[in-house]
């Protein structure tokens, strides 16, 4: 097991190096740059040169790249061009917000997706099944920003069921412990803050969850149908086991394997979806940060760090997924 993990960590390092290089040159090949973005069109050549030199962009690109790599290895991601703060601080502030949102979305997607997919499979060809197929098709097809504004319009404008934006009501005095507001409220026993944060979380999480939810329902349904056809289910029937035992012990565990794979792959989609969802609900997480860093200022240091972070999250989640295979399926267990 340790060997697998260490091998994967080496793979992680190689992947990150490749990605860093790619992102570094890719960002700089885009038209425009921080200097243009900060000074605007009417800046004099003198100020432009001054700023270019101050930011170190006058040096040859491979020198810049070498410095960048050196800094990354030592954990120094530089300062944000836009605000001047250290990049780690900027990201550290936004990261918990996105994690809170993504975790809520994944909980919804798995918590609803697996049971619904299972029910659809059990009622194959009947009303519930057909309804599920149609609803999931809509769920996969509908763009996040469209659904986001739609929900926002229905549930925050006409009827004030949910707050329209933000993570917590203004004026509510919450103590920041972990940066996860719902959790903080529970830790400090400020239950009103916890409830308020949870209330703010509902719509964004539902919006972000739709696509993974639809996919998990579909995969679970297909997977359960496959397993029900397996010979070992017939053996279980031949033993005279009761249906609930067969379902819990024999069907579910085998059917979950493909679902776990999909959950890993969906993390990537979730990160992408977070950008849109956060924009719609003014969430103030990594998604908001990434859009601001591109459109406002071409904030190279922040963007580079963000993309690296996304890659690390994606790879780590997939490592966890691979390890969880071993828990579910003895055949892939390493001896």
């Amino acid at each position: 097991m340790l060997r697998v993990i260490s091998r994967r960590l080496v793979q992680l390092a190689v992947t990150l190096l490749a990605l860093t290089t790619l992102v570094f040159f890719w960002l700089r090949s885009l038209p425009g740059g921080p200097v243009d973005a900060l000074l605007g069109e009417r800046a004099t050549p003198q100020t432009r040169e001054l700023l270019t030199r101050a930011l170190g962009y006058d040096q040859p690109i491979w020198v810049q790249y070498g410095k960048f790599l050196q800094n990354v290895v030592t954990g120094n991601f530089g300062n944000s061009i836009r605000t001047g703060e250290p990049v780690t601080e900027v990201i550290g502030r936004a990261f918990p917000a996105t994690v809170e949102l993504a975790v809520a979305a994944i909980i919804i997607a798995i918590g609803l997706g697996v049971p619904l997919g299972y029910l659809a499979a059990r009622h194959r060809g009947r009303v519930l099944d057909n309804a599920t197929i149609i609803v999931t098709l809509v769920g996969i097809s509908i763009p996040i920003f469209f659904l986001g504004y739609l929900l926002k319009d229905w549930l925050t404008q006409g009827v004030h069921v949910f707050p329209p934006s933000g993570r917590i009501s203004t004026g509510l005095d919450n103590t920041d412990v972990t940066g996860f507001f719902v959790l903080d409220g529970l830790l400090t026993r400020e239950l009103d803050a916890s409830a308020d944060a949870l209330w703010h979380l509902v719509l964004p999480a539902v919006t972000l969850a739709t696509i993974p939810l639809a996919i998990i329902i579909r995969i679970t349904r297909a997977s359960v149908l496959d397993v029900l056809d397996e010979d070992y289910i017939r053996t279980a029937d031949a033993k005279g086991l009761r249906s609930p035992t067969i379902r819990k012990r024999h069907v579910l565990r085998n059917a979950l394997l493909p679902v776990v794979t999909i959950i890993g792959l969906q993390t990537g989609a979730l990160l992408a979806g977070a950008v849109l969802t956060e924009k719609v609900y003014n969430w103030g997480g990594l998604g908001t940060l990434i859009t601001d860093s591109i459109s406002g200022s071409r904030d190279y240091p922040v963007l580079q760090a963000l993309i690296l972070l996304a890659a690390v999250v994606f790879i780590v989640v997939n490592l966890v997924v691979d390890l969880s295979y071993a828990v579910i399926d003895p055949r892939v267990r390493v001896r």
Partner: protein
Amino acid sequence: MPLLDVRDLSVVFQRKGTRPVRAVDGVSFTVEPGQTVGLVGESGCGKSVTSLAIMGLLPRRGNKVTGEVRFDETDLLKLRPQDLRDWRGRDIGMIFQDPLSSLNPVIPLGLQVAEVLERHQGRTRKAALKQARDLLDAVGIPDPDRRLDEFPHQLSGGMRQRALIAIALACKPRLLIADEPTTALDVTIQAQILTLLKELVDDSGTALVMITHDLGVVAGLCDTVNVLYAGKVVERAYRHQLFAEPRHPYTHGLLQSVPRLDVDRGERLHQIRGSVSDNIPWSEGCAFAPRCDRVIDDCIGETVPLEPTFRGGALRCTNPVPQEVPA
């Protein structure tokens, strides 16, 4: 009084938009307590479907089962599905063809044996596992204590089939149905498994329905043999009689097709010409007629009935292989 009395069992597969397929067509046979009965025939003759129908294991949709399956006077086909679960595993055990796919890949072997004891004998998990260990030992699995925690992929093919036998016999059922239990195994293991089955069945007095296409299996094991063709019983006889004097041309052909050691090398093996797809429907005569060497005009036109023979068997043929006149 027979333990199992199958009367006029038919299974019709019907899917929307396709022609219904009559996989089993009025099959009747009986099994006495402790007796071993063979169901023999080539692929697609309906032998496996018969066994699944007896156990109520056919998929719920897309098929229609008619007739009676009387087990100890109870018609299993009339039981509600949840009530039939009380009989399966307890009174009737079943062994399947492919031992690897028939065992759950993610559940330890011990639990797969123990759960049937928990279910039918109300054992606790601990007691059931202890008993499972003894069962694995009894079917000849070496080092059973270690095997309890192992998974099917860690066992050899022969051991997996032994494990399936242990599961099927765990509750000491009165009837065991074995559906081609040796087909997926190599020849030496086949012999071991058959010997094991014979011992277990003889010791426990369990009746056995042996489903096979392998006449060698029949010769070593069965008291009575039912030869199936295209969903119907075409000949039934005691084992010795069947091998000594097959009456139906199909049975005769099958026996002729078995390779023999006392025949010169290079001599062509007998084969039954044509294939199952050449059959005619039973309603238009004998389904086997297009492939039969002894076909006569009377074979086609009317349904051929299954008629008892004076030796206690039965035969469905208008022009059977003649019996040798005793000297």
